[in-house]
């Protein structure tokens, strides 16, 4: 009943003003996952930008630091995220110009973003993003989400898009207060790996944002090289059953550069650090992945392939 009146409302408004605004997204980023841990926030996102069903961009940074105390991760339309970054830069600039020793904290920025998204939704010209805002200020950790129509809330662990369906169950099962950094990263990587396996718009290239003490800026990469291909080869040859506990490059600081890119972000009291892109080690030998249509013998999909095979073999062609 409600949807009927709403659709009527849409047509009423559209025919009235001849809306020329974007009503659907073009280049989109997939999920962002974030959680609170002992010292701050960890946030992870892959670096892919899809253009419909094409994975067009593979080096998009979807997590960015904001001011001194926060990081923002976005899924959805990338150009709208860039617009939001411009708004936030203006806010941070104005805040700095006051020069009063105070700086915008994550709660303030979250509130500002909520208002921006809600007001754009009111004008029927939404910024097509779901944003995750995380930060630490004066020891207080904050993690919140804002959707494109202004729905907002705070939580201990948040995921957008597909992450809500696939990563949240993992987070709900395994998150607890006072996760250590290693536990947090392992949990995040587990989430990202599941998303990589099952979300077709995910790319194996992640950003991990870290906060290090002593203001290590992200330009100073810590000489990481990803252990990707070599290890993978080794694993396949040894035919070992693997569990999820792959060692993270952040933990042992050994990883080789790989075309696959993941980035994790960490923010603590001391500051933000964004890692260099790295790839998660993946294992594809799961039984569920091999011969996926095994259980569907006789279904039209399997039948179609068999028929196509027969047709191609037939003498008429």
């Amino acid at each position, binding site marked *: 009943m409600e949807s009927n009146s709403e659709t009527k409302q*849409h047509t009423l408004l559209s025919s009235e003003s001849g809306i020329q605004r974007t*009503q659907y997204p073009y280049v989109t980023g997939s999920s962002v996952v974030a959680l609170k841990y002992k010292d701050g926030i960890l946030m992870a996102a892959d670096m892919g930008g899809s253009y419909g069903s094409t994975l067009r961009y593979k080096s998009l940074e979807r997590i960015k630091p904001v001011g001194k105390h926060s990081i923002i991760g976005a899924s959805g339309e990338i150009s709208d995220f860039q617009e939001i970054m411009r708004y936030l830069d203006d806010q941070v600039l104005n805040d700095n110009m006051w020069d009063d020793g105070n700086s915008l904290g994550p709660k303030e920025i979250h509130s500002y973003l909520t208002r921006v998204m*809600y007001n754009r939704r*009111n004008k029927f010209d939404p910024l097509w993003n779901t944003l995750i805002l995380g930060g630490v200020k004066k020891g207080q950790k904050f993690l919140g*989400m804002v959707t494109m*129509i*202004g729905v907002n*809330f705070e939580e201990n662990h948040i995921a957008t898009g597909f992450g809500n369906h696939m990563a949240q169950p993992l987070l709900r099962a395994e998150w607890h207060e006072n996760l250590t950094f290693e536990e947090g990263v392992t949990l995040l990587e587990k989430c990202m790996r599941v998303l990589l396996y099952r979300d077709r718009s995910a790319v194996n290239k992640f950003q991990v944002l870290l906060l290090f003490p002593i203001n290590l800026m992200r330009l100073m990469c810590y000489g990481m090289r990803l252990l990707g291909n070599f290890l993978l080869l080794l694993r396949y040859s040894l035919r070992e059953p693997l569990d999820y506990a792959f060692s993270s490059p952040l933990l042992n600081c050994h990883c080789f550069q790989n075309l696959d890119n993941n980035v994790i972000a960490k923010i603590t009291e001391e500051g933000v650090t964004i890692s260099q892109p790295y790839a998660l080690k993946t294992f594809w030998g799961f039984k569920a992945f091999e011969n996926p249509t095994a259980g569907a013998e006789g279904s039209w999909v399997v039948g179609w392939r068999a028929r196509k095979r027969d047709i191609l073999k037939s003498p008429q062609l």
Partner: protein
Amino acid sequence: MTKQQARFEPYDFNGGTCVAIAGADYCVVAADTRMSTGYNILTRDYSKIYKLADKCMMASSGFQADVRALQKVLGAKHLIYQHQHNKQMSCPAMARLLSNTLYYKRFFPYYTFNVLAGFDEEGKGCVYTYDAVGSYEKVGYSAQGSGAKLIMPVLDNQLKSPSPLLLPAQDAVTPLSEAEAIDVVKDVFASATERDIYTGDKLEIVILNVDGIRREYAELRKD
């Protein structure tokens, strides 16, 4: 025929149920703390109850962004009122303000289902119930939101209030004591949680009485 695209839908239903009960010298407002979207749960710990004035609390369910905007708008208007009149707004005044605020957006409504609870000018409990565009009524008790239709009949049955259909009109305040009313609220939410997917996780109960404002929590089923 233009191609059908995924259209932008400005509304979402984030679920939740709110209940308010007025007694002779107390008022109980309760709401669950679950926020959902579609078949997902976004968070299990989101408060739907907002203090508008010392003697006036509002509980709202529906579309969370509109709820939050409504809370802020009313809060701002109340602040201006306090500056201009050097006193807090009374509950009946706030009730009319909420109605007018909702009707102001009659052609792009706040998708919110509200109950207002507080004390009227005589110090007796009062509850006002609203629809999304501002029609309101002073009642003795009310439920709004996704579980309202499950809860309202039970309240009609259990609260022993005089019937609203009687003439001359009698005040529909419940003769139950505060503790009894809180028990009814807990029972009623437990039942609604069983059958309504949008209700559950935790119940937040706010009790206003002569001693001030008190908050209680009760666990609900998380499935």
